[in-house]
């Protein structure tokens, strides 16, 4: 009997997800746990498992389609079984009698699945298998707690165990998680507050500002990053004499695109140069699998009135220095104006954040999960350096690299920084043809 696989709901606020790629085609046999397709939300990229074993009878959407959650995306059944939309499917499961779908057949793009009438959905006896995230199934949260999660931008994964009867996640656990407080366990002895006290407020000495929009999303993503990765930061610096002189020379050019190239743009170009040499830095870590990306989709942190945004310079390895500079300016402006397309805010493989303009010597950037590292660029300042010529003052640029120790060890990160420093020091070489 044919089973519809539906677009999983990957979070309370997710209303739709984009199908990035199909991993099967109609006619393929697929195992229950095998990946059917890869999808992307505004927060993450996910694999959708088949959920049932069988033959792929139909793919109901194209790659790149934005599909509402809980809508059918594919149909899996017995080989040779025909499938058609509507209640007939369930009532007449003609197994192996009519023609099998040829392996080469196209996905049924035109199948009328956009808004199946609810009555049909009710009549069909085909079990609609939801490919849900396994982590959310082990836990139970009260309806009110789920509502609070969605309001406070907390994921169920953010809460290890609820404090309610039998570990039920209660509203107070969600509130605690959103405030990054220790989750009050019912059974664990605690020295400070009683569990009820989190809910009891003294006289109002503060203004309550609920997190909404980008702020809410940042809060959730940053907390998730900290809670799901093993972050550490290494600080270093690189000789910036040539960086400054190159920047000075570029600035003197008449072509405004060239004159507009900044220190930051040069640093990004250096990142694009170095990343392919350290593939683990241009990667995603998802559910125990490290995905090493060939192209460099470079995330660039941008400070906006609404909060931090990270637009993505796609396929930066193919771009010239001028192109990188122009693209970064365009994206940053769009972020400032609030006109940035959602597509431009997801899919980065490595992120650079630059606080040099604020005179920051070093800091500990937070990884833009599921990426594996983030490079913090600090201020350029004169530094005493021992050289063959004795002690001299040279301009150096600070670098703070946060890496996920789950996949990047300290020495490896140090080698990345060392190599990156060399590229910065000899930045001119980057644009020469030998």
């Amino acid at each position, binding site marked *: 009997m044919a089973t519809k696989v539906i677009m999983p709901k990957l979070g309370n606020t997710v209303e739709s997800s984009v199908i990035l790629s199909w991993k099967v085609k109609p006619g393929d046999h697929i195992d229950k746990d095998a990946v059917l397709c890869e999808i992307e939300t505004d927060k993450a990229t996910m694999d959708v498992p088949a959920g049932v074993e069988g033959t792929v009878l139909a793919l109901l959407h194209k790659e790149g389609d934005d599909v509402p959650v809980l809508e059918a995306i594919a149909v899996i059944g017995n080989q040779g079984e025909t499938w058609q939309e509507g209640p007939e499917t369930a009532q007449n499961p003609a197994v192996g009698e009519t023609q099998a779908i040829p392996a080469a057949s196209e996905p049924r793009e035109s199948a009328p699945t956009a808004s199946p009438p609810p009555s049909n959905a009710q009549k069909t006896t085909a079990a609609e298998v939801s490919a849900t995230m396994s982590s959310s199934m082990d836990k139970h949260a*009260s*309806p*009110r*707690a*789920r*509502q609070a999660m969605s309001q406070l931008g907390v994921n169920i994964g953010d809460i290890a165990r609820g*404090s*309610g*009867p039998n570990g*039920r996640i*209660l*509203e*107070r656990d969600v509130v605690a998680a959103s405030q990054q407080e220790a989750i*009050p366990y*019912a*059974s664990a002895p*605690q020295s400070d*507050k*009683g*569990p*009820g*006290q989190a*809910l*009891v407020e003294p006289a109002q000495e503060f203004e309550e500002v609920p997190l909404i929009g980008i702020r809410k999303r940042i809060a959730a993503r940053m907390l998730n990053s900290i809670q799901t990765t093993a972050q550490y930061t290494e600080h270093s610096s690189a000789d910036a004499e040539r960086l400054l002189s190159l920047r000075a020379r570029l600035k003197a050019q008449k072509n405004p695109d060239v004159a507009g190239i900044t220190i930051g743009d040069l640093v990004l170009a250096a990142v694009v140069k170095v990343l392919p040499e350290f593939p683990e830095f241009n990667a995603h870590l998802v559910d125990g699998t490290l995905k090493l990306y060939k192209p460099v989709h470079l995330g660039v942190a941008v400070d906006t009135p609404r909060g931090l945004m990270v637009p993505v310079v796609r396929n930066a390895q193919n771009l010239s220095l001028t192109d990188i500079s122009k693209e970064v300016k365009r994206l940053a402006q769009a972020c400032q104006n609030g006109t940035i397309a959602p597509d431009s805010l997801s899919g980065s493989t490595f992120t650079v954040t630059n606080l040099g303009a604020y005179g920051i010597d070093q800091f500990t950037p937070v990884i833009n999960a599921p990426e594996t590292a983030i490079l913090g660029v600090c201020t350029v300042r004169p530094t005493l350096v021992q050289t063959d010529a004795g002690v001299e003052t040279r301009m150096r640029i600070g670098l703070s690299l946060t890496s996920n120790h789950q996949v990047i060890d300290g020495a490896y990160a140090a080698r990345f920084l060392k190599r990156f420093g060399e590229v910065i020091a000899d930045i001119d070489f980057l644009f020469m043809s030998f």
Partner: protein
Amino acid sequence: MPKSLPIEPNEVRKSGTLKIAEIPINQYRRNFEQEKERFGEAGLLAMLHDMIVVREFETMLNTFKTMGAWEGIEYNHKGPAHLSIGQEAAVVGQAAALDPDDFIFGSHRSHGEILAKCLSAARKLDDAKLVPVMEAWLGGETFGYAKRMPHSDTFSLARNFIVFGTLAEIFARKAGFNRGMGGSMHAFFLPFGSMPNNAIVGGSADIALGSALFKRINKKPGIVIANIGDASMGCGPVWEAMTMASMDQYRTLWPESAGGAPPILFNFFNNFYGMGGQTNGETMGYGVLARVGAGVNPDAMHAERVDGLDPLAVADAVLRKKKILLEGKGPALLDTITYRISGHSPSDSSSYRTKEEIEEWQNNDSIAEFSKYLMENGILGEAELGTMREGIHRTLFEAVKLATNEDACPRADGRFIESVMYSNKKVLKLEDRASEMLQAGDDNPRVQSIARRARFALDADGKPLPKNKVYQLRDGIFEALLYHFKQDPTMAAWGEENRDWGGAFAVYRGLTEALPYPRLFNSSISEGAIVGSGVGYALSGGRAVVELMYCDFLGRAGDEIFNQASKWQAMSAGLLKMPLVIRVSIGNKYGAQHSQDWSALVAHIPGLKVYFPATPYDAKGMMHLALSGTDPVVFLESQLLYDMGEQFEKDGVPQDYYEIPEGVPAVRKAGKDITIATYGATLYRALKAAQILEEKYGVSAEVMDLRFIAPFDYEPLVESVRKTGRLVLASDAVERGSFLHTIASNVQGLAFDWLDAPVAVVGSRNWITPAAEMESIYFPQPEWIIDAIHERILPLRGYTPSTAQTSQEIARRYRAGV
């Protein structure tokens, strides 16, 4: 317990022999000239006519039930048809003796009574009265059909109306006398004195008594007959009704001007069978049913046996009894023998009687016999009889054609049924005349006592005042009652120890001084008849307040509450009103049979309103609400609260009239972390729990007093739950089957997305109520509520439960049935 009637030992210990009054058996002797003078030739012919109408009508129904068709008209009547073929003379003879003002209440086998009583009344009303009655009924809907049937004069039009209205009712049609809401076993037609027929055996006995009380107390003309069967003599409520109708006080204590005993005739249509049980020789032991009268009062209830195969014998007996009843010397009893030739119902194969027996009664057929009698006396010829039969048949045929036509004669819809479950009228006085009162103002000792009391329970510093200086919950009920007694001249109250004693819990203290006898009296210990007579009083047009001293006695009035008070408004299609307040006091301390809260039982019955105040302010305001309405209200009162002062309304209980908005629960303490909602006395334990939660565990509890069971407005409760996300429900009713589970289920449906935990219900243990000293292990205590919160909703830090309230424990209890 009046002091004016001393019990003298010397008197009651004297020896002697009790003489039982003689009971006549079939002593009537026909005298044609006398009867012709009494009824006229036309009246005698009318009796025969009506007997044939009843016979033909029932034969038609029997044919439909057994053959699915009659005279070529096919129709499947799915409902019941309890026929009385063979009993026509008895019902027609009775009806011939009655006026439209006389009421008859009947049984499931009452098609004949309806037809006979209505035909008789139609003849006795002049056209100027008759036509408007028919035109007004159901906005003229039924009459519209009658007019489409052939007719030659007003009476034949009325015959159309009666035959069609009854048949359409049996076939559940919207144009039926009761819009199809009553059906075969409950059809009736008020304006002609045909009152509700009752499908519960003997069910009409105490209701008819109430109707007779209404006539007596409100000085209305006519008598009331309870037409019940011989087998109902085995029913408790019949005995209760006969006992209560025979109380000495009508003669010894009620003022002479009241007119004496309620004018009720208990007429037993004695067909010798109760379904298949033979009352004569098998299931009863009275020998002659009329004998029972001798056991009830010194007049032997003026009982006699009368030959129900002779309409003249029956009419003669009823006329004589009516005279006695109008003199206030009732009650009366008739043992009207008759015989049901048809089966109990069409499925009856008569396995309990022989063919020969049936044949012998057929040989005594009343119609053949009475036709012959009229012919012999020269007032009827064969041709005239044929014409009569033909006319009847044509009327019946036309009525059947209309009433079986699905298109011409539709049924009511669900919205209509919903609209008649309650009447929801607001009527302060049911009749516009002065109320009879004695001391009802400042001269009343209770009024004076209340005037000395503080109407708020706390002093200026928030400290409780002494109980005996505070206006109590019982005072609130009293004040409201007194107000309505003054307003509504029809209002009367009765129950056990209501007068002199002032009610077992002193709610009525002062009413003895305020009210003359008929308006407040002590009843026999007959819970069924107490409530049942209230039902009859209310549906006849008066306002009644009856009392059950303990909720545990509610079982004794089960039918009257569950089947009668609750259902008659809807079964009459809203034509009857039921302004009846049933005060039910919920006990404690007295163990298993005096301490149960049975609110769930009444909550389960559609048609009842159920109120349960827990504060003096509410007790008064809700009693005003109950006594200004027209619906049956079960008014629950907790004995734990009678002396409770008002703690919530800071201005105290108002002296003036006010009503609590119906169905709306009240917030007694605001809070934001959890809602605790209760019924009755549990409120005060919930407040204690809230205090502990707040002071020791920093949990802010909102406490709600649900106070209404039906109708109930969920919105305020859901609003509270939306805020707090958590709900505990508590009451003193045992947990299993508690109405709180209905509340819980609905709140979980209405507020699912706001809930942080499933709703918890805390009730009394599923045990017998133990002794007073052990009640704290039985009734919900403050710590039970906190334990349930800790175990099932919101674990509290450092809290150790003292009772088992876990889900697992609940499962265990259910497994064990406790």
